[in-house]
């Protein structure tokens, strides 16, 4: 067998019958085979791999090397906030008192964990400008579900269950409309104006007696801070709806502007974005929510309470609570990391992070203009941006005959992870670029040069980008074929 073929074998295709990495501890009690009646027994063991420990280690270390990762290179994936993940956080999260604490330990003997969660709640409440926090949701989309269910409970409690419409801008993340449907409410799309913000006339026309809430991301997915935010809040409040703030883009405004002060009732944070929980190749995440006084009675169980003597407890006796959204207390390991981050940076450091994120994004945009890249890839909205910006690849496609997808794939050959592509949907051939605050000026310069180089190359010969990448472990993959004839597991 050639080395090349072996490279793509799965762990199920390696090893040999009888090999093992696990040796059970001593069988120190009497056999009890009869304790499980035959009718409940498995006839054949599951066909798990049969490999030694060295084979196992080599297999997964080799696989790891086929991944692009943030520790190795620039990852300007828009809307994902790929900022540096400090190793300190991994060290403290692995301390046995955190990592090996059972979730059902008596709260009296988990005081350190509850204090940490309490402190994190207070810090997030301050960043949000909203007084009450639940850390329970497992991800941003889970926080959204919490927010919409809370809104529904709030209206039902007020005797207004007919409020079923959720207003969402057409620039929203796909999770927003998906969440609304899951919560049994209806999506009403609101148009975007020429500045990339909410179309106020359209909002006024659609807000009314049946409005449950408005879900808004600000700055939005176009990298635009909606300057009409107070008017938007006032329109929805007058109509009797609540305001939900998708905090995916919090990294632009920490210590600068707060959703609570803008009139929002509910905000979710993505700890894996603004607060450095490593993304792990697509999870784990964490989506705590902060809410206003009027939403507070409906928050999920359990909640953390602190007595006058400073003793912490978990409390589940809130009569109007919507209940639980998951088991136990949420993704505590992510709380440890994000809390460590907040304590490392402090008030000043968080503000500096947002300021630098916005500075870096605007600088990268300016460099692209200086290098002439913007002629083919113009900024979709506005002049400046917040922490990320959207370019349109429309002119590039027409003039240079390469699509945004081709540009993205060619960037891989230059050693960069591409930006988010084809989102937001309303921009033709969109590229959403978010450099984050932790990148150096040299990195931004080099990335701008790489984009310019790819455009120069395309002007010469578009087929180079059209067939890229060339240097990656595999080249362009047949995604349509994968969906048409799904092969979702190793055949054995």
């Amino acid at each position, binding site marked *: 067998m050639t080395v090349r073929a072996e490279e*793509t074998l799965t762990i*199920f295709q390696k090893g040999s019958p009888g090999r093992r*990495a*696990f040796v059970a501890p001593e*069988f*120190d*009690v009497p056999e*009890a085979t009869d304790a499980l009646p035959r009718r409940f*027994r*498995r006839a054949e063991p*599951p*066909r*798990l791999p049969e490999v030694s420990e060295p084979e196992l*280690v080599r297999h997964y*270390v080799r696989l*790891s090397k*086929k*991944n692009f990762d943030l*520790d190795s290179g620039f990852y300007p994936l828009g809307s994902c906030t790929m900022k540096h993940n*400090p190793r*300190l956080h991994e060290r403290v*999260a*692995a*301390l046995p*008192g955190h990592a*090996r*604490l059972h979730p059902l*330990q008596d709260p009296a003997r*988990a005081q350190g964990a509850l*204090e940490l969660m309490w402190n994190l709640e207070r*810090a997030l409440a*301050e960043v949000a400008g909203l007084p009450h926090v639940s850390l329970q949701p497992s991800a*941003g989309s889970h926080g959204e579900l919490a927010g919409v269910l809370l809104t529904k409970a709030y209206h039902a409690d007020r005797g207004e269950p007919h409020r079923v419409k959720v207003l969402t801008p057409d620039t929203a993340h796909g999770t927003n409309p998906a969440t609304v449907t899951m919560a049994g409410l209806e999506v009403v799309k609101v148009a975007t104006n020429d500045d990339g913000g909410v179309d106020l006339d359209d909002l006024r026309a659609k807000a009314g007696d049946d409005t449950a809430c408005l879900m808004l991301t600000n700055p939005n997915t176009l990298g635009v801070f909606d300057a009409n935010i107070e008017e938007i809040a006032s329109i929805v409040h007058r109509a009797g709806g609540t305001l939900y703030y998708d905090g995916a883009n919090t990294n632009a405004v920490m*210590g600068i502007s707060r959703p609570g*002060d803008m009139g929002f009732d509910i905000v979710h944070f993505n700890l894996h974005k603004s607060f450095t929980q*490593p*993304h*792990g190749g*697509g*999870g*784990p995440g964490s989506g705590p929510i902060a809410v206003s006084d009027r939403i507070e009675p409906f928050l999920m169980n359990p909640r953390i309470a602190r007595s006058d003597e400073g003793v912490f407890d978990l409390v589940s006796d809130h009569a109007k609570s*919507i209940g*639980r*959204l*998951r*088991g*136990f*207390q949420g993704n*505590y390991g992510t709380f440890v990391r994000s809390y*460590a981050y907040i*304590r490392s*940076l402090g008030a000043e*450091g968080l*503000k500096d992070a947002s300021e630098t994120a916005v*500075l870096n994004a*605007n600088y990268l945009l300016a460099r692209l203009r200086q290098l002439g890249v913007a002629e083919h890839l113009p900024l979709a909205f506005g002049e*400046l941006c917040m922490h990320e910006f959207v370019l349109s690849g429309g002119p590039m496609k027409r003039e240079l005959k390469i699509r945004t997808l081709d540009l993205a794939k060619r960037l891989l050959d230059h050693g960069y992870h591409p930006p988010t592509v084809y989102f937001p949907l309303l921009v033709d051939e969109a590229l959403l670029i978010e450099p984050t605050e932790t990148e150096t000026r040299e990195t931004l310069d080099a990335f701008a040069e790489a984009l310019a180089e790819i455009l120069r190359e395309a002007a010469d010969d578009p087929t180079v980008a059209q067939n890229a990448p060339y240097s*990656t472990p595999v080249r362009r*993959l*047949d995604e349509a074929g994968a969906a048409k004839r799904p092969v979702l597991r190793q055949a054995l």
Partner: protein
Amino acid sequence: MSRYTAVTSEDLRAMLDAIGVGSVEELFDRQIPVSVRLGRALDLPAGMAEQDVYAHLDDLARRNVSVEDEISFLGAGMYDHYVPALIDMLMSRSEFLTPYTPYQPEVSQGNLQVMFEYQTAISELTALPVSNASVYEGPSAVASAGYLARLANGRSRFVASAGLHPHSLDTLRTYAEGFGAEVVEVGLRDGATDLDAWADACAGDDVGAVFVQQPNVLGAVEDVEALMASKPDGAVGIAAYDPIPLGILKPPGECGVDVCVGEGQPLGNRLDFGGPSFGFFAATEAYLRRMPGRIAGETTDIDGKRGFVLTLQTREQHIRREKATSNICTAQALNALGGVVYLAWLGRQGIVDLGELLLARTDYARRTLTALDGVEALHDQPVVREFALRLDAPVGRVIERCAAEGVNPGLALSRIGLDDDGLLVAITERRSRADIDRLADVLGAAVAAERQAVAA
């Protein structure tokens, strides 16, 4: 400039010049109305040096009693299994820890192949043909399976065994309140789902899904086949399984289960006070296109080389938006990596050996503890790794007495809203016969002392 940013004053001047603004403030002044600017510093403590943050987090950690600090028999959904060293090594590798979701498959083959292998392992374990790449965790996986059923058949009544973990039942109710379904609970009889009451509740063509847990929250092995046999036509049979005993327990795919979900923490993941872990989600072919979450599939590149991609994405929120089968976009990729490496580490024979060892130790522990005065079995059903006791003494006080001796005897069932006099005892391979004997000594003494206190 903090230790995670790099803008020197020279950089700043050059960057502002390039942008064409005079200051960073101007960037904000031109974009955010003054009326919604904070205008003061956040009321948070000042930042700290790395070593001071470490010291603070270490201090908080020391105020928790972990499973390293006592002999713990806590379980009820998360278990203190041994996590092999190679999993720590792999999960902390930059290449697995720091990428995003594999949107660019050409540079994510490691991650995607891990998902494919994970799906294979879960499919083998459950004897169901398709698995997704993981969801958040156990109880929300149960609720997500309910949403799948609601979308699949549109019916609005769910029948759920009281043997489900109360966190799963609560989560299911919260979700069902949203998407519009009523949850009817069927009680237990001698520790297992009451089959007659179950059959009655399952009658009727408005039943959209039925839910059981294996083993159930009291540790009892349920007759899943019999429970699934009562399921009306067209209803979705959903079961939450503990993955660890599946080396010896008949798998859900052979018991008539349509969708099998569960908490993945026991598979190579840390306790972490409840998360992050992962939820697994496997199903029959019929429900493939209604599954939530990410799914990896095999394909080839333009040179014909084998590769892997995220697939069947037309189910998902970023394409289907309000018509998506779920709002989930986060899998638990890193935790699922721990899961598949753990299963490969255990291997085909290892998962059987582990299951038999737990079965025997659980049997030994149950016999030893129920021989104590004032301690009896809460039910007589078969158990494989966890069992419930009834104490003739206040459970909370007994636990306190044991804890003072360095033994955590298990969970007071009242902590999860169940029997006031119940104690749930979990066994893992980390609890030896000597540990169990120690528990018997300490528990026996604690119960005796409490009974004496009452008598006095």
